[in-house]
């Protein structure tokens, strides 16, 4: 390389940075941006965020304390009419604090840029495009709708979100369902506050931090920490099937207060380790204190425990009592709201109230029980320990070394069977002494479905008649009960008939629909299936699994970003016994086959045998792993493809 080319290269880089730096300021929209017809890296993008810049800094008001000021600046390009909704912007903010002033949001610098006859035309947003909605007593919303926006427009706006709640800074998202060309987020945090910063998503970004002297006027001689996060070309994030929560994959920067350290004052710890998190939560009066109360239920408990001695029985009796008595008001969280006592009287409470009552009763009955903090699927998966990641609390009891997870808010749960949205990541058990331990929330015990079919083929009427027995256990039973318990038998059967290729169902019975929730649900019935097979050239072509044949691959996309989430391991066993009609004989049967992934994480087995006038088919299908990595997507897709092909091989009967 000659000297000249090096110079040019350096110059180019400087120039590049310079140009970029200039163009990330509001008001400097270029003709090139307005002329651009499609996004250069994602031609299907309906719009793109050309840049998003954010800055968080603190101000101090005597008497009120610190306020976090969060400033955001956006420039967005609209490529297609479907992207016009980006011209409407809504920001919700919290106004329900007990001890703090309301948050506030103020929009400014909102401008639309269009190209008309080669010239840039600016239209500013006036007050008429500006709305404030009082959503309810906790939330307000500021809305703007930019004027004169059409395909091709570039829009800009800025808003400041001010909040006295400095425990959690607003999340800075840098990935959207449209591409982000460039983002930059600066935080300027006084040395009194130490924040834990979390980076969410799969995108690697650049970060930089330095300690500088403060420029604010509220105190002198202290330092602040300036951090800068930046990157470019963040691809759009799209949602897919079998995703636990797409937010777990969205690029975002989160900041949570870890410690306050004012001069001449003791350090206040907010979070840093799981133990720290646990202690802080436990110390709160709406947690630890409430767990200790027990006077309110002692009378009831006495009655419950009469002649019930073993711990297992006591656990079951108490769990059922709380589950039946208490009604969940759909509020989550791990702190009580009105308190356990009031909740108990009203028979209604939030998650913490109901499960605290359960824990306290178990303890009073001599059973070891502690609260477990949980993050639900909707709440997502945190990266580092902090307090705000949990949004739910359940109980863990320990009897003879066996650990049993319990949630009494739901009417269909049982010991070790939790609502499906709790099957997420890890829980955190907290003991009275403040110590804590990790609890695996994702079960490794497979839920089983057993299908037993005895069927006779009637070629004269073109029907198959038979008996079917379906037994569902564990999570499969829970799921069944949750979905179907509210339905009348008639409407359930109507759905079942349609699910079973419009069979006609008679003699339907069900065992254990509601009685013992820890036992399987068993259904028994007779069915008649009309035109259940193809007759081609006088031969009968029959699918071995009849109405249970998988026909559609659940995975259709070519590329996958997120992990594949199944919730819990699931095993399906089908046993079919067909009676071959008189005058017919077996010409061919599907070949016995085993299809499985590495380590049997998913497997499929089909066996077929014929014996005189009987055909036996056994199929075992297993998904043994609740979550697969995105890299396994192709493998899983292929697995489903293969098992569909296998299930669609036919039993062929010929006339004799």
């Amino acid at each position, binding site marked *: 390389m000659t000297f000249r080319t090096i110079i040019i290269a350096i110059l180019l880089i400087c120039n590049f940075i310079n140009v970029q730096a200039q163009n990330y300021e509001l008001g400097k929209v270029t003709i090139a941006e307005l002329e651009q017809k499609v996004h250069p890296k994602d031609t299907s993008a309906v719009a793109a965020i050309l840049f998003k810049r954010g800055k968080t800094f603190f101000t101090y008001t005597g008497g009120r304390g610190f306020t976090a000021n969060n400033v955001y600046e956006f420039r967005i390009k609209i490529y297609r009419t479907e992207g016009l909704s980006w011209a409407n912007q809504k920001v919700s903010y919290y106004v329900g604090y007990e001890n703090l002033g309301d948050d506030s949001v103020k929009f400014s610098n909102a401008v639309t840029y269009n190209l008309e006859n080669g010239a840039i035309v600016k239209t500013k947003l006036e007050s008429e495009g500006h*709305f404030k909605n009082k959503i309810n007593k906790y939330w307000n919303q500021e809305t703007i709708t930019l004027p004169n926006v059409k395909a091709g427009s570039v829009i800009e706006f800025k808003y400041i979100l001010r909040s006295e709640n400095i425990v959690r800074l607003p999340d800075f998202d840098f990935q959207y369902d449209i591409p982000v060309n460039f983002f930059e987020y600066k935080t300027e945090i006084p040395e009194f506050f130490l924040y834990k910063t979390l980076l969410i998503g799969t995108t690697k970004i650049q970060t930089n931090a330095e300690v500088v002297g403060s420029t604010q006027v509220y105190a002198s001689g202290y330092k602040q920490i300036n951090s800068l996060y930046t990157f470019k070309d963040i691809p759009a994030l799209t949602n897919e099937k079998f995703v636990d929560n797409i937010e777990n994959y969205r690029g975002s920067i989160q900041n949570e207060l870890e410690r306050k350290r004012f001069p001449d004052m003791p350090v206040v710890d907010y979070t840093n380790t799981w133990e720290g998190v646990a202690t802080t939560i436990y110390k709160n009066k709406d947690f630890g204190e409430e767990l200790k109360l027990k006077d309110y239920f002692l009378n009831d408990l006495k009655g419950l425990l009469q002649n019930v001695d073993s711990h297992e029985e006591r656990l079951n009796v108490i769990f059922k009592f709380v589950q039946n008595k208490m009604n969940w008001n759909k509020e989550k969280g791990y702190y009580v709201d009105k308190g356990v006592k009031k909740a108990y009287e009203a*028979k209604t409470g939030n998650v913490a109230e109901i499960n605290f009552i359960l824990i306290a009763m178990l303890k009073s009955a001599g059973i070891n029980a502690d609260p477990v903090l949980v993050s639900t699927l909707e709440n997502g998966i945190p990266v580092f320990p902090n307090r705000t990641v949990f949004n739910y609390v359940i109980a863990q009891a320990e009897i003879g070394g066996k650990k049993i997870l319990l949630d009494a808010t739901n009417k269909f749960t049982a010991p070790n069977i939790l609502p499906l949205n709790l099957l997420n990541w890890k829980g955190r058990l907290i003991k009275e002494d403040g110590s804590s331990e990790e609890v695996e929330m994702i079960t490794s015990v497979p839920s089983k479905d057993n299908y037993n079919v005895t069927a006779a083929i009637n070629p004269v009427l073109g029907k198959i008649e038979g008996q079917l027995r379906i037994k569902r256990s564990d999570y499969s039973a829970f799921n069944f009960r949750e979905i179907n318990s509210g339905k009348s038998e008639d409407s359930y059967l109507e759905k079942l008939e349609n699910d079973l290729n*419009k069979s006609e169902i008679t003699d339907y019975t069900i065992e254990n629909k509601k009685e013992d929730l820890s036992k399987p649900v068993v259904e028994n019935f007779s069915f008649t299936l009309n035109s259940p097979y193809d007759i081609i050239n006088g031969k009968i072509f029959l699918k071995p699994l009849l109405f249970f044949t998988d026909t559609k691959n659940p995975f259709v996309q070519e590329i996958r970003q997120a992990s594949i989430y199944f919730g819990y391991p699931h095993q399906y066993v089908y046993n079919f016994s067909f009676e071959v009609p008189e005058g017919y004989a077996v010409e061919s049967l599907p070949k016995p086959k085993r299809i499985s992934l590495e380590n049997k994480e998913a497997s499929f087995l089909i066996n077929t045998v014929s014996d005189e006038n009987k055909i036996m088919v056994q199929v075992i299908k297993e998904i043994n792993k609740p979550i697969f990595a995105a890299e396994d997507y192709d493998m899983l897709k292929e697995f489903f493809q293969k098992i569909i*092909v296998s299930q669609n091989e*036919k039993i*062929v009967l010929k006339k004799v």
Partner: protein
Amino acid sequence: MKTPCYSLLLFLFTLISSAQKSTYLISSIKDSLKENANAVVRLDQMDIIIASQRSMNIKTQRVVSVLNEKGLSDIDAYQHYDKSTSVKNIEAIVYDALGTEIKKIKRKDFRDQSAVSGSTLFSDNRVLYLDYTPVSYPFTIVYTSETETSNTAFIPQWYFLGGYYVSVEKCVLNVTFPGNLGFKKKEFHFSEFNINKTVDTDTRLSYEAVNILAQKAEDLSPSSRDLYPRIMMGLEKFHLEGVDGTATTWEEFGKWYGDKILSGTTTLPEETKIKIKALVGDEKDPVKKAKIIYDYVQKKSRYVSIQVGIGGWKPMLATDVDRLGYGDCKALSNYTKALLQTVDVPSYNTILYGDRYKSNIQSDFVSMQGNHMILAVPNGDNYTFLECTSQDDPFGYQGTFTDDRDVLVVKPEGGVIVRTKIYEDKGNSQTDKGSYSIDENGNLSGHISIASEGSQYSSKSRTETLQPTEKEAHYKEYWSKINNLKLGKVTFTNDKENIRFTEDVQITATNYGVILANKMIFPVDAFNQSKSNIKRIRNRKNPFQIQRGYLDTDEIEINLPTGFSIEFLPSNFELKGKFGEYKTEIIKKENNKLTYKRSMFLNKGKYSSKEYDEYRLFMEQISRNDNAKIILAKN
């Protein structure tokens, strides 16, 4: 003989007074009312007092016994309010199954929330609603509320039956009104229900109904509005957001709306007028002028819903739309009208119900109706209707949202009721032309051109706006019978002039032909298998209707693999009946080639509940024949 009578009366009296306390026993509900019901409305009473043209007071009493969790939504304990409607009081009391009071909910315990929803950016409409967590089922809730409003243009419709899976023990409507305001009413679907009109005088109207059984929702049913009893009410002299109105005919109503609400909203800045005149140039034909302007509006504007005060009924000023480039249906229709005025093309605001389900403005009941506005441009003896909220619709296209229904066209000389465009069944067409080849391993490769017109245009043309992943999912769903489908090149031609949307798609799929020993089996119809899945319904009660018919025609060339000969070919098939006509034909050609022809025509129509199973079997036969398979044998 007198004494026993007297004591009987006394007995009755005590019975009534004691019943007051324990009216809401669950055990006193008749079994017939519990059937198919998630909730039983014990009493649904509304007392409407219209004191004057500018004052209406409504008292609501609703006593609902909720039998299970699904019945919670039948409580309906909520009240909307805004600047001109105030809630005077609102309260609820909960009783357990034995009629014992367990909770009292006062006004302050109702949640107060903005009623902004979905695409609406702003509305000053708010709602007070009850958020109650039941402690056990069944229970009974007694809800009462009272509102006061100055708007008398809308008297709420009264539905004797509020929904599916809910029964009604007793239902009472009382209306009091001054004799000089021209109160009127219209009754719908009373015939199969036992409804008593207890009072009907110059100033009072009352109805009472008892024991209405719960109804089940069934696929393809008409809307509940078209099945169950209801009453529309209105005044000839009414008031709306500060404006008095008088109308006994649509002509008068239209005149009032035009003069009082619309007038003065279509002024435009001079420069815009000049621009528009330049844009239209020498064009003389009014329809062609309208086309140019419609295109201009589509490119310039976008739909944004903002409902403020009278803005809910009065369009935003055309000058504002011109400046801001957005508005709701009224604003954009009115703006388009203003632009058309500048080039001397008349056009009229048109009020209607916008919905996929065809729903009429009640032509014999002059009152404020509708939920949407479009624009009518005279075209010979007819009108061309313009949907001004869409950036994509072809000029004059009415798709499936505003077609075939009675609408109110507001002309300067007064309103008229007009039927919008009817898309004939045969014109709702899909024409498929293509070919596919199967190789010796059963792999398929093919291409097809799908041209859609009429009402089918509206569903298909949306494909153009899909993201690549959505597009892929769409075609894999569309051809869900083809496993292992891989999309090749996809091109769209959106011919807005002739309203035809054409998809050209190339596909491949492995293992389309299933190989069994030395045979290969696959369905002949690869591209257009019927997807209709008509549910089996136990003891169907409701009639059913097919709102829009269609005609699909396919012609597909099939290249069979070499080294195979045909062992079995499905026979040609034809099915004709009241629901439609279906025909398939397979023509053998030389060199292992076949031509597959299929046509499927479905009639629109209204049918009785008895005919439902017949329809299901008709569609099932079609879907079975669509799946007919060919067998090839290796030579």
